[in-house]
């Protein structure tokens, strides 16, 4: 059943091999997403996919006019590097895939992008903040979000200067993301004059963090920073509040999810997060995005939905300019990747994008939010540009 | 009256055929013995009757009732008890719990108590050891417990598979006495034995199994004298 054209079965109109001119109809261009669609972080993986899907469908008509059919090919990387790499090889092998929107986890993005690089497939990351992602100098790798060495200090400065934190307790989830962010935060916080009174790791997937929370009780810090995801972050906040810890909590983009409020409930009050994702409703285009998203998928967008959307937008902009530069013909993948890297001043629903020579977005901002109520999204209290 | 009637049964273990058409019957009040060399199919015959082994062809009737291929918990409830080869007592249960398991299908505390007392009349030793773990008892005691456990079902037919195996001569003697005693108290007995001489000498009738087939049958006293049997089994 799953025959040779498993991926392109809907292209029953264009059964001819792609490298020759299609006799009639249009030529298929596929864009893959890679994100965890199953397992613990599937909510956001799915949000990225849906955001990307939405943008692709919006742009479909335009490309149709140019003679191309856009198609989304979602891959489930299961937050597993092996799976990500093997998917990447499948993606690389597909002549029709010109770009990848993904990943969610830096630990998966790093090895997978080694493969994209070999096939000259442009990757635009909506979420990966680890420094290493772009620091390796790969020409195909881009991201529209800020880096941990930008996000961490932004949070630290706010914590020390605005919230007046002197003693900070740091927890992280012992993943690549959590470690990277926490370390960046600590370095900046210590520089700014705060003392780190405790630094502990937790195990992802568990639900009882009272052991570490008891340490917080003993250390009596005036701020707790958590480097990790909302699933654990929410529980830590809730359990800490239950124990009477009422100092502010702070976290990074991993906590930027409606799930945080679902989990922590009222306890989420007095929590600050830094995020690479801005408030979608801050701009008109963002508001429109939120409405359209709700209408289309019948659920609220996550913080990263709009980044999936904008990443796809950036890629398609690059693709379009590559095609135009090639007189309406589809150029090679390397040319598309070059064009994506060359994108300047792209106006997304939420963020502007211009890539520097490493593929980092020079317009990436870090936003600071505070949960004053138990509702999502939180209130923006600050914004830091590079 | 015929208590047990086995008609031409064939039993397989996977591809291995263990029984090749066994027919036998046991009448009320009899001691019938099954003898034969290793691997002849004696245990398999008993297992087929109680339902531990699946019969491929042939039929088995117990007191006129068809019981072919009924699972053991259904055959034993009809009043037949099977004391398996190697005693197989529940090693981690106490003597008392072992006996209670024998009475699993029996309703009524008094009935159970009464039966237990009866068992103690045959095996007074068990009464002294009520709370000892079955597994820590000596071989002979275990054999007594295994028989006692079967008696808790108050069986009409008692099937014993090599009750003398691995026991000291003095105990073997006791076991055979007990069998006779049980028989005289009205229990019909189907006895599988390697100890052919002793088995035949207490049995009313006997069957000789070879390679899954009955090759000889007759009165116990005749079989002991039979030259073929002497040659093949008694030496």
């Amino acid at each position, binding site marked *: 059943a799953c025959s040779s054209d498993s991926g392109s079965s809907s292209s029953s109109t264009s059964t001819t091999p792609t490298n020759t001119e299609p006799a009639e109809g249009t030529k298929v261009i596929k864009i893959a997403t890679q994100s965890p669609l199953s397992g613990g972080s599937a909510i956001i993986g799915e949000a990225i996919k849906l955001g990307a899907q939405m943008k692709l469908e919006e742009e479909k008509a335009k490309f149709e006019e140019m003679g191309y059919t856009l198609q989304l090919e979602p891959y489930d990387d299961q937050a597993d590097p092996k799976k990500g790499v093997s998917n990447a090889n499948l993606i690389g092998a597909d002549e029709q895939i010109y770009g990848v929107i993904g990943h969610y986890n830096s630990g998966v993005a790093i090895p997978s992008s080694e493969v994209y690089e070999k096939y000259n497939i442009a990757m635009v990351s909506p979420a990966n903040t680890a420094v290493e992602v772009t620091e390796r100098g790969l020409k195909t790798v881009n991201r529209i979000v800020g880096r941990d060495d930008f996000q961490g200090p932004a949070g630290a400065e706010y914590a020390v200067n605005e919230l007046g934190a002197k003693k900070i307790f740091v927890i992280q989830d012992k993943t690549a993301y959590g470690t990277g962010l926490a370390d960046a935060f600590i370095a900046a916080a210590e520089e700014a004059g705060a003392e780190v009174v405790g630094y502990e790791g937790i195990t992802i997937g568990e639900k009882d963090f009272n052991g570490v929370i008891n340490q917080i009780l003993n250390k009596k810090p005036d701020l707790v920073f958590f480097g990790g995801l909302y699933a654990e972050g929410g529980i830590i906040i809730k359990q800490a509040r239950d124990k009477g810890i009422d100092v502010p909590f702070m976290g990074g983009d991993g906590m930027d999810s409606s799930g945080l409020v679902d989990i922590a409930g009222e306890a989420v009050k007095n929590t600050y997060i830094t995020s690479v994702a801005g408030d979608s409703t801050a701009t008109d285009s963002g508001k429109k995005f939120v409405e359209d998203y709700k209408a289309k998928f019948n659920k609220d967008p996550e913080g990263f939905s709009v980044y999936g959307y904008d990443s796809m937008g950036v890629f398609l902009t690059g693709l379009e300019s590559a095609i135009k530069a090639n007189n309406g013909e589809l150029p090679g993948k390397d040319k598309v990747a070059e064009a994506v890297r060359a994108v300047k001043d792209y106006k997304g629903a939420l963020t502007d994008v211009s890539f520097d020579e490493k593929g980092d977005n020079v317009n990436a901002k870090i936003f600071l939010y505070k949960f004053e109520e138990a509702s999502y999204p939180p209130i923006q209290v600050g914004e830091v540009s590079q | 009256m015929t208590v047990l009637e086995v008609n031409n049964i064939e039993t397989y273990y996977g591809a*291995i055929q263990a029984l090749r058409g066994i027919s036998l019957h046991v009448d009320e009040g009899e001691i019938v013995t099954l*003898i*034969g*060399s*290793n*691997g002849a199919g004696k245990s398999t015959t008993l297992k087929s009757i109680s339902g531990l082994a699946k019969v491929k062809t042939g039929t088995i009737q117990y007191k006129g009732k068809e019981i072919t291929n009924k699972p053991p918990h259904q055959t034993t409830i009809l009043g037949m008890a099977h004391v398996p080869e190697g005693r197989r007592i529940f090693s981690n249960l106490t003597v008392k719990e072992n006996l209670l398991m024998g009475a699993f299908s029996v309703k009524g505390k008094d009935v159970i108590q009464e039966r237990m007392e009866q068992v103690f009349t045959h095996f007074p030793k068990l009464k002294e050891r009520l709370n000892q773990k079955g597994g820590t*008892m*000596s*071989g*002979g*005691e275990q054999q007594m417990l295994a028989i006692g456990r079967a008696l808790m079902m108050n069986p009409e037919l008692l099937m014993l598979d*090599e009750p003398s*195996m*691995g*026991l*000291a*001569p*003095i*105990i*073997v*003697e006791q076991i055979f006495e007990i069998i006779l005693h049980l028989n005289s108290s009205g229990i019909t007995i189907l006895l599988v034995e*390697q*100890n*052919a*001489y002793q088995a035949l000498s207490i049995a009313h009738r006997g069957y000789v199994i070879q390679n899954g087939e009955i090759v000889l049958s007759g009165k116990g006293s005749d079989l002991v004298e039979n030259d073929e049997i002497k*040659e*093949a*089994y*008694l*030496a």
Partner: protein
Amino acid sequence: MTILEVTNITKQFGGLTANKDITMNVEEGKITAVIGPNGAGKTTFFNMITGVYQPTSGDIKLDGKSLVGLRPDEVAKKGISRTFQNIRLFGEMSVIENVLVGMHTHLKTNLIGILLNLPFTKKEEASAEKEAYRLLEYFELDHLLNEKANNLSYGAQRKLEIARALATKPKLILLDEPAAGMNPKETKELTEVIKRMGQEFNVTVLLIEHDMKLVMEISEHIVVLDHGEKIAEGNPEQIRTNPKVIEAYLGSAAVH
């Protein structure tokens, strides 16, 4: 000449004394039997000789060298082999493989030889296979060589266990109830094998058995245990008529 010398061994399991202060000798080339009621401590006695259990006190010497403290595999290498009361074959392995395992102590090849399939390894393996086959022939198990040990009938399994034990080329072989579950005819044949085996394989036999016919016929020396203690010792005639033994063990079987 004494091959095995047991002096004052005692074995306790918690509060229970399974063997108490037993002293005995096994003479080279003779067949010695250990008898006694169920639970008297016979198997425990074997287990101490073969290193499965360590004696609580006392000493065991093979050819004058103490075995105490050695692991079972070390004891096996010193030349003692055994069978088990409840058969312990390598059930999923074939009959001939069972015997081949018995020969392992005499195979000298090593990992390198095996990986490179060196000529030496090949030759050694081939000759071991032939020797194993001859042992199977001796016990009339040759037609079953590729059969799984588990699929053998009880009697055949008993014989295979003895064949496997002999494959280690022991000086002393310990048989724990070899005739259990055999009918009188089979027992008689087994008796013959044990007798001949002693001479032809040049091995001393020490056995446990409840079948008095067998014991009385082949033993040159009998030791009787009861409640862990040695209550008698002597030749078959002395044992048969010993009132203590009759009372504790033989019962009226003594008459036969």
